């Protein structure tokens, strides 16, 4: 069914790269486009700890095409969150280069092309749901107060929280808080959505429902998504492609294409192919743990 895991990164995004168009004509502002939305080349990250150095990530290279949904799975401690922080430009790589649509992450951030969803909802407790969603619009001084409000309400509607605009985070359930977090990440209409185990703390049922909603949002808004998770089923359900990491040091060990048809629905979770892919990814995770296995990338 699916090709082997050893496919070349970035070759089969939903938007095929047209090699006839000259490189320079694809402006960075052009959505999707031929230039990879995210590109990592030989990226390593060392942390200086008292008395020793920790190699958190070693020689990571991959690409994400515009409009693609890519997941990175790996055991805890493999540096997947660090990877996402590098892509967001929150930390600098020790070696290698990272580009967002051909630019360094800092520039993409300054142009507000990144949306980040954290492990914790990270809502400001003194702001209402609506005010949390419009926070970054205020920071970017985008639109008038009325326009921001309208946009915020629209986004809350999108994540199914239309009736909770004036609720404080403390009044919202864990799942609702995460929805606000997603709405907030979408507020600036980012090209790239970075998701750091956004549903890790939720129960399985809520997680599946949130995944379905995330998928709908991603389809509607045609953004590029890079998700980090340790949940194999979640990765398969959402992604076009799954990258498998191993720990000590954090490195890429495999890449698996997910050729399941879209649009996807929750009944996919009972599909044979879904099971087969999940099983294969689980095996890859374990073999990566042992330091053997189908190592590539």
């Amino acid at each position: 069914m699916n090709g082997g895991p050893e496919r070349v990164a970035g070759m089969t995004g939903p938007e095929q790269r047209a090699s006839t168009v000259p490189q320079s004509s694809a402006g960075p502002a052009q959505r999707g486009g031929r230039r990879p939305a995210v590109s990592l080349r030989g990226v390593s990250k060392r942390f200086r700890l008292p008395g020793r150095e920790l190699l958190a990530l070693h020689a990571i290279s991959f690409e994400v095409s515009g409009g693609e949904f890519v997941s990175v799975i790996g055991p805890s401690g493999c540096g997947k969150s660090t990877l996402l922080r590098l892509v967001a430009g929150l930390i600098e790589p020790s070696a290698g280069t990272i580009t967002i649509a051909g630019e360094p992450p800092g520039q993409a951030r300054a142009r507000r092309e990144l949306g980040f969803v954290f492990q914790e909802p990270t809502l400001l407790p003194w702001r209402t749901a609506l005010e949390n969603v419009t926070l970054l619009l205020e920071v970017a001084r985008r639109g008038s107060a009325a326009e921001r409000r309208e946009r915020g309400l629209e986004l809350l509607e999108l994540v199914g929280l239309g009736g909770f605009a004036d609720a404080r985070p403390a009044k919202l359930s864990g799942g609702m808080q995460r929805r606000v977090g997603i709405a907030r990440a979408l507020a600036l209409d980012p090209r790239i959505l970075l998701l750091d185990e956004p549903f890790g703390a939720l129960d399985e049922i809520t997680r599946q429902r949130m995944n379905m909603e995330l998928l709908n949002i991603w389809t509607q808004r045609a953004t590029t998504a890079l998700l980090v998770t340790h949940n194999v089923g979640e990765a398969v359900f959402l992604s076009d492609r799954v990258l498998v990491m191993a720990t000590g040091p954090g490195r890429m060990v495999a890449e698996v294409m997910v050729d399941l048809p879209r649009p996807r629905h929750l009944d996919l979770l009972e599909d044979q192919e879904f099971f087969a892919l999940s099983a294969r990814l689980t095996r890859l995770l374990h073999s990566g743990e042992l330091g053997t296995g189908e190592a590539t990338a």
Partner: protein
Amino acid sequence: MTRRIGLLLASGAVWLALLGLWWLIAALEKGPATLWPTPAQVASALWGLHAAFVQNAGTTLGEAALGFAVGVVLAVAIALAGERYRPLAGSLHGLAIGVYSLPLIALAPVLVLWTGSGLTTKVIIAALASFFPVLINLTQALRTTDENALELMRVGGASSWQAFWRVELPYALPMLFAAFTVAAPAAILGAMLAEWVGANSGLGIQLLNSMQNDDVPQLYACLAVASMLSLLAWLVFTLLGRWLCPWHAWLRLAEAQN
């Protein structure tokens, strides 16, 4: 709600019991030097001298308020400067601790020599007494801001000022008000202490005078007024903090939920 009323009644009962005990001891004390004036004697001293008490309390409160304001401004400035330019933090805090460890009771006479026994000495002593808790608490609060919230601001391309106003300051406010509840009574104490070295009016000087005149009921009345002022200062900032930062309670609620 009924539980709250019960608690209120209980604490009221404790106070009444203490007052009763005081009265009992005072009644049993038959010595010529009345070390234990009865509550009634203290109350009558308070009432008889109420005009003087109002004036003196006003003076002390004014000095304390000015000193508190100066102390807070200083502490906030040092804390912010230290957090903005981290390398400075060490030396700024070292200096602050050095100044704080000067015994105020010894510093007061020196200040009187420098600036005379006017308002300046009291304001400086009150400021010194109040600035340290504010500095320590605010610094601590700024350093424990939710790291993710700050990263969120960075991802959104916020400037460090925007992050400060929208995230760091609101997060620090509850702790800042907690510091005020300690610093404000300290400022009152500082002002009274400074008055001992020389003053025309104020609770501290009234206390000193009544001690020298062996006027024990008045001494107790001074004590009562001074502690009332401190309690009032504490209450004002506690309520203000609760009113301005209701999210402090929400935050705990949210954490309990997750």
